[in-house]
């Protein structure tokens, strides 16, 4: 029986709490970006998911994602339904120095924030009832299988050698692609003056970005699953990439639009955090500078392209999380080195070009599955509950039309 480490356990539980805070942080980040008549509904998406997925994860999500494999490396079995057999003793497979329940709780926070990320794509026009059904279906049918593929020792992408330290593909690519599909399915918002979003409260968004940045230390450094040097490496690479991407985004917007955008600093930091997520425990701090720079350029370009394409991914979820997640996954294959993590592999820079191809397979597989499964879920739910609210409700704003409340008194 493996022994519990007090230090590792404390760090993993603390990290779970840090990642939990990211979801309310995301609510603020998205809430500030929408128009004032939709701020409550946008915040509600994240906050309701915090409750909803906490329960579904305990009941069946964890066992589907991390339970003993059913045989093909595609999905876990029902052995741990409602956490039967998941106790205060360590697992023999996952994080063997912390209680199994602590590992489960840490993973639960990832499962919560992933569908919450998607909500930015259909903000300001999605019916709440349809959103609830979508969140249950997506976290069960998309998130859990992909987490199993990548993070279970029996998962087929894990077996292929795909590296994803903290969820670049599982969390960000999967949610980013789903967001694009959702935006295409639900259609453009009505009444927009410009194709760009109309943030009603930039300070709220910057506050949200700050909370996300703070919580991301749990997301990435916590994924070391121990209080050790690897956690310290992930902590430093995470902060460095976020910082580099933030100042890169600001610089580009300064040159491109003539002003150093505050909103750009916030979004750039998030893009950096996304890109370093799969790489955080496999690359050096110097490499994280390059990853931050690269993702700042790439995601800024993706956001500009999105405006030209006039796809109303309302809060740029695909540009930041989809593109940033794919970029980070490929960059992991370029910059990974066993000098940082002996459990990893070398990447292109260290002479192992095949790791880039393996990472690319992971990106394509996760992206394609998320796209197809998300589309099927949306079509199915739309047959039961119309996903988009009626025109008058959209005009009135979802805060009032869907929740009967308003954020700010007139």
């Amino acid at each position, binding site marked *: 029986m493996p022994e519990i480490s007090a230090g590792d356990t404390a760090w993993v539980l603390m990290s779970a709490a840090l990642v939990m805070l990211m979801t309310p942080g995301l609510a603020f980040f998205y809430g500030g970006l929408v128009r004032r008549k939709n701020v409550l509904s946008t915040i509600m998406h994240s906050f309701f998911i915090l409750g909803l997925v906490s329960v579904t994860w305990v009941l*069946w999500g964890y066992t589907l994602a991390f339970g003993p494999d059913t045989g093909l490396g595609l999905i876990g079995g029902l052995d741990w339904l409602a956490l039967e057999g998941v106790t205060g003793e360590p697992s023999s497979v996952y994080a063997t120095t912390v209680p199994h329940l602590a590992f489960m709780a840490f993973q639960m926070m990832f499962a919560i924030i992933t569908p919450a990320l998607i909500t930015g794509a259909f903000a300001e026009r999605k019916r709440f009832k349809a959103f609830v*059904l979508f969140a249950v279906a997506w976290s069960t049918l998309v998130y859990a299988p992909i987490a199993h593929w990548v993070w279970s020792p029996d998962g087929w992408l894990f077996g292929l050698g795909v590296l994803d330290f903290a969820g670049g593909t599982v969390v960000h690519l999967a949610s980013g692609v789903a967001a694009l599909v959702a935006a295409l399915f639900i259609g453009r918002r009505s009444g927009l003056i410009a194709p760009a979003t109309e943030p009603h409260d930039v300070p709220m968004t910057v506050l949200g970005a700050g909370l996300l940045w703070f919580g991301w230390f749990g997301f990435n450094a916590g994924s070391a699953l121990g209080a050790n040097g690897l956690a310290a490496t992930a902590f430093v690479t995470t902060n460095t990439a976020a910082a580099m991407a933030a100042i890169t985004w600001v610089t580009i917007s300064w040159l491109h639009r003539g002003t150093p955008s505050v909103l750009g600093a916030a979004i750039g930091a998030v893009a950096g955090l996304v890109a370093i997520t799969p790489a955080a425990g496999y690359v050096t701090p110097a490499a994280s500078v390059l990853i931050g720079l690269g993702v700042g350029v790439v995601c800024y370009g993706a956001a500009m392209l999105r405006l030209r394409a006039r796809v109303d991914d309302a809060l740029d979820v695909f540009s930041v999380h989809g593109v940033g997640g794919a970029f980070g996954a490929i960059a992991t294959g370029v910059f990974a080195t066993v000098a940082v993590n002996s459990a990893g592999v070398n990447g292109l820079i260290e002479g192992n070009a095949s790791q880039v191809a393996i990472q690319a397979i992971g990106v394509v597989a996760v992206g394609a599955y998320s796209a197809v499964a998300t589309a099927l879920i949306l079509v199915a739910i739309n047959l039961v509950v119309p996903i988009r609210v009626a025109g008058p409700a959209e005009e009135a704003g979802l805060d009032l039309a869907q929740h009967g409340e308003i954020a700010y008194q007139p």
Partner: protein
Amino acid sequence: MVIAALVCFGILLVAWILAPSDTSHPRVEPTAVEPTPEAESLPLAA
């Protein structure tokens, strides 16, 4: 106990499907507010 927990969630799921889709609250129209000068904009003599 596992079955009971799953049934509890199932009850909520059915409730969500049956719940009303939109509120019947009337639209709140903005009301005119008398502008009041902020403290720092008042003349010092005041």
